[in-house]
C-alpha cells in the first residue's frame, strides 16, 4: 500500500470540512419535523411549502433577472478591460484601469456597497436620476464588481493566445473588428462563458452590496434568506438551500464538461 502523506490526509480532511456541512443541510431539508435539529422522519413537505411562498418566488425571479443582466454587462466591460490589460502598451491610463478593475476583488463588500449607495443618493440629488434605488442600481453595482472577475479570467486566456492567427487574419485583409469577432472571440469563448457563469453566480449570491444598492422595489433572494435566517434556522430555508446547492453543482459540472469537451476538440483540430 502506498504511504499516505501528511498533505494527502489534509486534502481529504479539508474536502470533508468543505462538503460535510452542505450534505447535512441537504439531509435535513427532508426532515419531517419542524425542529430543524431533531429528525422526525423523511418528508419532502418543506419543498412544497417553499413553492407556495410568493415572497421567495418573487425574490428568485428578481435575482435571476439581475444576475442575467449583470453577467452580460460584466462580460462586456471585463473583456474590454482584459484587452487593455494584455494588448495595450504600458501607459498611465492602462495602469489606472487595471488597478481599478482588480480592486473590487479584494475590497471589503461593506465599503463597495456603502460607496455605491452614496453615489446613487448623490446622483439623484443632483440629476434626479436614479429616482429611486431598485433593480437598475443593483445591476450597476453587480456589473461593476463582476467585471473584475471576468477581467481576470479573460486576460489569463488572452495571454495564452497565439497572436499570429489574428495577425494572419489581418494580413489577409480582415478589419480589426472582423478579426475580433471571427477569430478572437471563438478562441476565447471558453473564458467568456466561464466569466459569464462566474458573474451570474456571484450576482445571485451577493447579499451585502445588494442590500446597500437595492431599494424597496427590488428584494433579491439573499436578502430574503438573510432576514429569515437571522431569526434562526428554518426547515424551509434548508429546502431552498438544497435546491440552490444542487442547481449550482449541476451548472458547474455542465460548464466544466463543456469546457473540457471544447478544449479536447480544439486539440484534435490542431493535430
Amino acid at each position: 500500500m502506498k504511504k499516505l502523506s501528511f498533505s494527502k490526509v489534509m486534502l481529504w480532511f479539508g474536502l470533508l470540512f468543505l462538503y460535510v456541512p452542505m450534505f447535512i443541510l441537504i439531509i435535513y431539508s427532508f426532515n419531517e419535523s419542524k425542529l430543524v435539529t431533531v429528525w422526525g422522519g423523511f418528508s419532502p413537505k418543506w419543498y412544497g411549502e417553499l413553492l407556495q411562498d410568493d415572497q421567495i418566488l418573487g425574490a428568485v425571479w428578481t435575482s435571476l433577472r439581475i444576475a442575467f443582466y449583470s453577467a452580460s454587462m460584466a462580460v462586456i466591460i471585463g473583456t474590454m478591460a482584459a484587452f487593455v490589460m494584455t494588448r495595450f502598451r504600458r501607459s498611465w491610463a492602462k495602469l489606472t484601469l487595471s488597478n481599478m478593475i482588480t480592486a473590487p476583488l479584494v475590497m471589503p463588500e461593506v465599503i463597495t456597497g456603502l460607496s455605491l449607495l452614496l453615489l446613487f443618493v448623490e446622483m439623484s440629488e443632483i440629476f434626479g436620476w436614479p429616482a429611486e434605488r431598485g433593480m437598475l442600481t443593483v445591476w450597476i453595482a453587480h456589473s461593476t464588481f463582476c467585471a473584475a472577475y471576468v477581467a481576470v479570467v479573460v486576460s489569463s486566456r488572452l495571454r495564452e493566445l497565439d497572436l499570429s492567427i489574428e495577425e494572419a487574419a489581418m494580413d489577409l485583409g480582415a478589419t480589426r473588428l472582423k478579426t475580433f469577432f471571427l477569430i478572437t472571440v471563438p478562441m476565447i469563448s471558453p473564458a467568456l462563458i466561464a466569466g459569464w457563469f462566474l458573474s451570474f453566480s456571484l450576482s445571485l449570491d451577493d447579499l451585502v452590496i445588494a442590500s446597500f444598492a437595492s431599494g424597496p422595489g427590488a428584494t433579491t433572494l439573499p436578502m430574503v434568506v438573510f432576514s429569515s435566517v437571522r431569526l434562526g434556522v428554518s426547515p424551509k430555508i434548508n429546502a431552498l438551500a438544497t435546491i440552490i446547492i444542487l442547481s449550482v453543482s449541476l451548472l458547474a459540472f455542465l460548464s466544466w464538461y463543456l469546457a473540457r469537451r471544447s478544449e479536447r476538440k480544439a486539440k484534435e483540430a490542431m493535430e
Partner: protein
Amino acid sequence: MKNPLKIIKGRYLTMGVPYLWLLMFFALPFAIVLKLSFSTAAIAIPPYEATFSYIDELLNISLNMGNYLLLLQDSMYYMAYLSSLKMALISTIGCLILGFPMAYAIARAPARLQTVFLLLVMLPSWTSFLIRIYAWMGILSNNGLINNTLMWLGLTSEPIQMLNTNFAVYIGIIYAYLPFMILPLYATLVKLDLSLIEAASDLGSSSFNTFWKITLPLSMGGVIAGSMLVFIPAVGEFVIPELLGGPDTLMIGKVLWQEFFNNRDWPVASSLAIVMLALLIIPITLFHRYQSRGMENDV
C-alpha cells in the same frame, strides 16, 4: 486599405468604455465617501448636511472632523478595528495551515486528478456564501449536530456554547475563504521545480527542513496572494459575525452596517469605511504588487 482613424477609434473605445464605467461607479463613489466622512449628520433625507454650499458668492466648504474625533474618543470603535484585525489574522493563519497542505497535495496529484480536485475545492465557493454560513448555524447550535453527538457519546452532559461565539466566527471565515487560499497556492506550487526538492533530499535534508528552506520560500508569492485574499475581506466581514458571532463579537463590518442602517448615521459610517481602507492599504498594495508581478511573469 485600412483606415487608421478607425483603428485609433477602436482603441479608444476599448479603453474608454471600461475606463468611464469604473471612474463613474468605482472611483467617484470613493470620493463621495471621503466627502461625506467630513459632513455632519442631520435628520433629513439624505441624513447629512451639505459639505459644499454656495451662498452670496461665497463658496463655503465645511469640513467636520467630528466623525474622526468620535472614532478616536469612543473606545468601542477602535476596539472593533483591533478585534477585526485580530480575527482576520487568526483566520488567515488557520486557512494557511489547512490550505497549504491541500494545495500541495493537489499540485502533486496526477494531472487528470488535479482539475477534479480543483473543481471540488471551487464548487462550494460557487454555491451561496450565505447558505454555507447558514449550514454552520445548524451544526454549531446548542441542540445542533456537534453538541448532540458529544452528549450522545457522553463526553459532555450539557451542550457547549459554540454558536454566537468568536470560535464560530473563526470556523465560518476559514470555511468560507479556504478556496481563495488554495487557488493561488496551487498556482505557485504547481510551477515549483521538483528537482530542487529532490536535490535537497539527496543531500540529506529532512522533509521538514526541505519544506522550510525550499518549498515555502519558493511559494511565498502564493502565500502572500492567498493570505491577502483571505485577510482583506475578512477584516470587513459582515455576514459571518452577524450570523455566527455573539453579542460580544466586535467586527468593524458589523459596526459600519449598524451605524448605517440602524443609527442612520451616514457620516460616521463613511469615516469608519475610510479608516478601514486606510488600514487595509498596505495589504491591498501588497496583493496588487504580487498580482502585477505574476502577470508579467506569465508573459
